């Protein structure tokens, strides 16, 4: 019995085994449902194995159009979030921790108001300012909703950056611009890639924002997916979601490359 106990303790002691509970959780609650989705995607209405759902997707130019357009919207949103969010996160990271934490929570706070109410209020705001609804409003709504998601990881990582590295760079004669672009920016890349991941794909799959801020004129891929599932075309909807997962896989691959590289290279200037 004592032997088992000792084995158990050393098992827990090895920190890499700590990933096991989560691994089990993920397998059960993420992978298994995913398998179900795959099953649905590769069957047609009668339950037989078939590729019709995918061929349907490829044959319909509208579906692909919508997907590419959604990717475009997502790219613009991500870029704007990055351009607006990075300086904000940077400024926050330079403040003292107390004020910074207050401000960070202030940036998160709007998200505690329900999404639908927020979006309706944005519509009302646009009305009040006599601004037209449409693509501009859509981008505004997206950036509005996802900016905190971009700021959070960047702030996290900037806050943890070793100031000695920055001082060292300055001591070695770098001017402020070089300090930023050669030291701080590369160090914050893991945060940036987290931020991109948390903004890019969710933009493609959000539907309510497009619905309300463009009066349903502009459809994003998420809307198409949702419509199909709600109207009983579960198989096609599942296939569409697999298409999205493919995109997910691609972006993830590209991202994690940058991630481990920067993490390994760590404090190199």
């Amino acid at each position: 019995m004592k032997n088992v106990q000792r084995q158990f303790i050393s098992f827990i002691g090895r920190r890499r085994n700590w990933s096991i509970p989560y691994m089990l959780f993920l397998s059960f609650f993420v992978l298994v449902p995913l398998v179900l989705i795959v099953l649905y995607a590769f069957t047609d209405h009668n339950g037989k194995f078939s590729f019709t759902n995918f061929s349907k997707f490829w044959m319909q130019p509208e579906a692909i159009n919508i997907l590419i357009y959604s990717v475009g919207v997502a790219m613009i949103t991500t870029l704007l979030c990055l351009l607006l969010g990075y300086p904000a996160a940077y400024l926050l990271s330079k403040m003292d921790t107390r004020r910074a934490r207050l401000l960070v929570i202030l940036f998160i706070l709007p998200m505690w108001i329900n999404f639908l109410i927020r979006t309706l209020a944005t519509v009302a705001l646009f009305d009040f300012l006599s601004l037209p609804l449409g693509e501009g409003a859509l981008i505004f709504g997206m950036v509005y909703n996802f900016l905190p998601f971009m700021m959070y990881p960047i702030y996290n990582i900037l806050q943890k950056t070793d100031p000695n590295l920055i001082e060292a760079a300055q001591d070695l004669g770098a001017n402020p611009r070089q300090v930023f672009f050669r030291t701080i920016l590369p160090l914050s890349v893991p945060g940036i890639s987290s931020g991109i991941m948390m903004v890019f794909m969710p933009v493609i799959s959000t539907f309510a924002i497009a619905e309300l801020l463009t009066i349903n004129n502009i459809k994003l891929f998420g809307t198409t997916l949702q419509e199909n599932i709600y109207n009983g075309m579960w198989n096609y909807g599942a296939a569409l979601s697999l298409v999205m997962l493919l995109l997910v896989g691609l972006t993830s691959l590209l991202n994690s490359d940058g991630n481990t590289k920067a993490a390994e290279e760590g404090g190199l200037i």
Partner: protein
Amino acid sequence: MRAITKQKYLRAVGMSMLLMAVLTLFSSCKQSDSSRKKILKIYNWADYIDEDLLTEFPHWYKEQTGEDVEIVYQVFDMAEVMYTKIALGKEDFDLVCPTQYIIERMLKYDMLLPIDRDFGKTGNYLGNISPFLLERMDAFSVPDKKALDYMIPYMWGISGILYNTKLITAEEVQSWACFWDPKNKGKILMKDHYWDAYNMAAIWGFYPDIASGKRSRYDVSNDHTDGDIAVVEEQLKKLKPNLAGWEADFGKEMMTKGEIWMNYAWSGDAVWAIEEAAAVNVSLDYVVPREGSNIWFDGWVIPKNARNVKAASYFLNYLCQSDITLRNMDVSGYTSALGTPEIRDAQMDTALTETVNLSYFFGPGNDSLLINPIQYPDSSVVERCVLLHDFLDKNDRVLEMWSRARGDNLDRRMIFIIAGIVLLIAAWPVYGQIKKYQSKRRRLGKKS
């Protein structure tokens, strides 16, 4: 020594937490059969019933049958979500209130149980439903199942145009042409609901045939042939650039703000909207264009996995009493399917000046009633409206058509630009990898 004791302690804590979690999970598992028999699970639209009834019904039920029952009430926001949950999830609701075409689908795919009309000593109030709706429901029957055995209509209405009287003339909205008229561009809201859109586009597109008598409105709306679908698509594509947009819930609100002139609306919603707009001095009115439109109704059905058919049937019976119905009409603002004299008397409004012919609904002799014509449309209006069937097998094709008519809002250039940028971005890491590989090779080459 102490460290190991701490390990033990933590392990015990962890184990007990795990145990508790597992217990909570399993405690939420299915209830026993006998206790379930005492529960009535109802799945309904929000704000569609007087909720006090949910606490009063158990007393009535006890009086009538001597049995206890407790109501569990769940609301949904979209008929399609409700259908998805019931079809995929085999939920054990006892009563659901879908719209008529979903009822038709459920009946066809064998997802319903018949209503138990054996009410013992209680009176049978199910006959209070107006024959007008009962007749039309019959069209939904399938070979071995009569629709009337499986559903009870609850609220009904028609679809038409809600318009701002100061911004557009009553004259213009008498025809669907106003939706396609470029003069009204950007001032129209259409419902983002493909049944209504199909019906409107079909009736408008085929109106010459309807007017000359070649085809009936019913056929045009419910045949769903490929040719019909093509005509509908053409009309919708012409309509799209003329619209301000498509709305699902918030059209009435944009109307009360006065920025939209016309909105495709259901009669029940129109009543609410007109009232609300009047409170902010915006004058709205409602009309069904002369070409025609559709009638709809929401009805109660008992899904296949229901466990308490008896209480469900009694509840339907309960609902079909006039006084109960009046309370529900009050709360929801919609028009009930009941055609009793009590309801008629309660809804009459002597402040109105124009009379409405409602013999089709309340029975002969009711051809000049002073009543709200939006809640209770005149027979001339109802004559040009049809009841819509579900698309059933054609659902796929219609949805494809719908996404075609709605989706393409992009020009080719944009697509190529975006695709190009994506490829560039994707190429960059690949390029980085190639360089890494090359520099590695160079380094290895130098070593040797």
